[in-house]
């Protein structure tokens, strides 16, 4: 007998809504055959069958929201190997007390009393031994992270507070995606020394081009150009398309240019990713962005669609704003936020003219790159947006 449980399908989910079963009791199923569709706070996913057999019973009805670990259905299996796996899994469950941890019993007691597993603590003592100070440092670090997380919370919260909570309520639940966002933001800010610099970009030419394309009934959104220009700038400055591995003392330059699009949805921020954007036309990017944003709002992004990003953009311009200090999408190295485009008086060739001006804020990891490189990077980006004809030169 095989119990199919709701397991963590990634992104730290804790619960999910059962949308739909692909099978019914009595059905013969094969290993890896999709059994059930589950909606989490980030995406919808299909759970595959862990073995082959006959569906014996469906325990949780569609529409119910259950926590990770809940048994959804039972398969009467004919697959001995699957059975064995199940047995092994339960066996390994209770204890791993045979593994050696290099720490004196007194140190282990301190950890135990603070509810800390020593598996996560890095030993700095002689021979890699975990010493009391390592445990205390770990405890402090944990506390700090919680504090940062709670500080980050209010600033990004205002939007939700307006619509979701009735006036008399004094608190809103801190769980699901909100909690995950908090965790990621705290992790990023806690790990990465952020630097943000601002730049002003003349959008007049690009807006003219977008208008022309619309008249030709080939509408392309402005952000699609941003994505394209970013990939080109990144290939000139690959250090911003990188991940720092401090442990191995390497800066890993990514081979793919996967651009994350920070997207607002009713449950909060989510970042769908345009994979290999450098190999896609602006038209393709436009189409893909449109579909991703729709999926984000419908909560139907798959786990692949929200993972693998190497650089993130955040287009807050349509909502307003003139500047920000964005938090990098850890473990990436850089992020650019695009702010509102406004008509402003500008000086062109000695004359005051009206131009459409947009501010951008570029945050980068100062461990990986320095200010001069970052400015050179945004300069490269700026010229392609100000003179969109330059993009022609990059056609393959």
């Amino acid at each position: 007998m095989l119990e199919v449980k709701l397991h963590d399908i990634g992104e730290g989910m804790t619960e999910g809504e059962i949308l739909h079963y692909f099978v019914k009791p009595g059905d013969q199923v094969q290993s890896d055959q999709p059994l059930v569709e589950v909606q989490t706070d980030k995406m919808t996913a299909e759970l595959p069958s862990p073995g082959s057999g006959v569906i014996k019973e469906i325990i949780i009805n569609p529409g119910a929201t259950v926590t990770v670990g809940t048994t959804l259905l039972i398969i009467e299996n004919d697959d001995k190997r699957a059975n064995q796996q199940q047995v092994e899994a339960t066996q390994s469950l209770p204890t791993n007390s045979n593994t050696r941890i290099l720490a004196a019993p007194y140190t282990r007691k301190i950890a135990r009393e603070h509810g800390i597993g020593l598996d996560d603590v890095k030993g700095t003592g002689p021979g890699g031994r975990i010493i009391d100070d390592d445990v205390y440092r770990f405890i402090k670090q944990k506390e700090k992270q919680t504090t940062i997380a709670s500080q980050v919370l209010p600033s990004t919260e205002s939007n939700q507070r307006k619509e979701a909570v009735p006036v008399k309520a004094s608190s809103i639940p801190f769980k699901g995606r909100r909690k995950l966002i908090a965790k990621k933001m705290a992790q990023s800010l806690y790990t990465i020394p952020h630097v943000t610099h601002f730049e002003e970009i003349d959008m007049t030419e690009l807006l003219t081009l977008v208008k022309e394309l619309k008249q030709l009934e080939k509408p392309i959104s402005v952000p699609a150009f941003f994505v394209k220009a970013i990939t080109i700038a990144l290939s000139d400055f690959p250090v911003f398309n990188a991940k720092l591995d401090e442990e191995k003392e390497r800066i890993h330059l990514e081979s793919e240019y996967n651009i994350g699009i920070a997207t607002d949805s009713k449950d909060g921020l989510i970042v769908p990713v345009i994979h290999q954007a450098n190999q896609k036309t602006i038209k393709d990017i436009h189409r893909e962005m449109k579909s991703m944003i729709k999926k984000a709002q419908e909560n139907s992004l798959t786990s692949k669609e929200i993972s693998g990003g190497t650089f993130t953009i955040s287009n807050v311009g349509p909502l307003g704003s003139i500047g920000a200090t964005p938090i990098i999408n850890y473990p990436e190295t850089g992020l650019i936020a695009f702010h509102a485009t406004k008509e402003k008086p500008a000086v062109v060739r000695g004359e005051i003219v009206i131009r459409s001006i947009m501010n951008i804020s570029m945050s980068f990891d100062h461990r990986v790159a320095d200010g001069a490189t970052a400015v050179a990077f945004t300069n490269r980006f700026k010229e392609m947006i100000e003179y969109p004809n330059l993009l022609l030169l990059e056609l393959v």
Partner: protein
Amino acid sequence: MVVGELTQERDLIIIGGGPGGYTAAIRAAQLGKEVTLIEKEKLGGICLNRGCIPSKVISHVSNKFNDINQSPELGFKIENCSFDFSKTVEYKHKIITDLRKGIEALCKENHIEVIQGTASFLSADRIGVENGDQFDIYTCNSAIISTGCSTKNHELYDHKHVLDSRSLYELQEIPEQLILFGNDYIALEAAFSYQSLGSEVHLVIENDIFPGLDFAINKELFRQLKKAKIKLHKNLSFSSVELNKTHLSVAFDLKHGDKVTMEASYLYIQSPFRANIGELGIDRLGITCDEHGYIEIDKECRTSIPTIWAVGDVTGGKQLAVKAIRQGKVAAEAISGIPSEWSEAFIPTIIHSKPPIATIGLTEEEAKDQGYAVRTGQFNQARNGFAAITGNRDGFSKVVSNAENDVILGIHLYGSNAIELISTGILALEMAAREEDIKFPLFPHPSNNEGLLEAVEALVNQAIHQVPKKSKITSS
């Protein structure tokens, strides 16, 4: 059986008064719990009544016997020395009774209620206790199961001539011929003990090694068995046994299909164990057991039912009192709200052979298998001054360490006082000691302790009382 539905309320109920159960009871009482301990036989369990304690009495007596026989060179001249085994049996009985009275007194002093009877769960918080015609029902807030284990294949044993690990030490006479079929510490201890007391001992093993011991220990063990005139038969498996009047005819299978028959007055057969859960009714509760029927517990000894705990042999793993005692304390502490845990990472292997064996941590082979850069140091007991004084020159100390960071991985002692000495090694491993941590302290002189010190020094060829290793000249 009278069943009145009059239930009596209790706080913590512990089922089984062996080393795990009574230790849990006392620790819980120390922490302010009201404790009820249910025992169906005698307090002290197998360990005290039929295991550790009786076997060590016999081992101790046989050591004395050896000492007396070896003392002429010290100046003793013992004439008309006689030995009366029935006195030994009396002595053993007295020791067991005294120790048990000690436990009973401790229970009383700690206000632990001891109930005689057989317990079974009616539900997770209701326990029935049957004692003859009486059947009482108790409710409890939490319960600890410490019911131990029993030998499997019980139909093999008559406990008069064919013995298991428990009846092996309940003999009323010294066996004329004793066949021991087994390769664990029980078989080895019995071999040396009964041989010293005058038995003709045949030790029969299924393979050609004693598992779990470092190869250096195995090698020395073969030598010591030979020296003690214990006949070792390798690569045989047990086939059948027949009782002819007072003698047994025991048949073993050779690997190639032939049979060997041996005659003996007594036969011990090593057998796997099974958890004592049959009478407990825990299948009704749905407590999770492993595939061998042992109760699964977490590191706080909690079973799959949050208010029920289990300690000792009934939870499987290495079935040793040392673990049950620790788990008993852990369960009692956890029930009392104190964060506590047990670990099987460093559980010593102790064999009261002659000389004794005591090891902790990894063998050289295990360390290599686990991918460590292994360094070993070995120091022979023959070069230890105190060993010379006491005439215990056999054996050695061996240390296995990680050459990359000096962390000690295993300590293997074979020789006089090994069992007392291994505590240094256990402490060293628990403290994550490195070589210097053992080399720095001052070890008493003269003593067997120095053997361990010099084994650690031998890791880098710096043992003082060891002939320097001839350096190998290699051409590059």
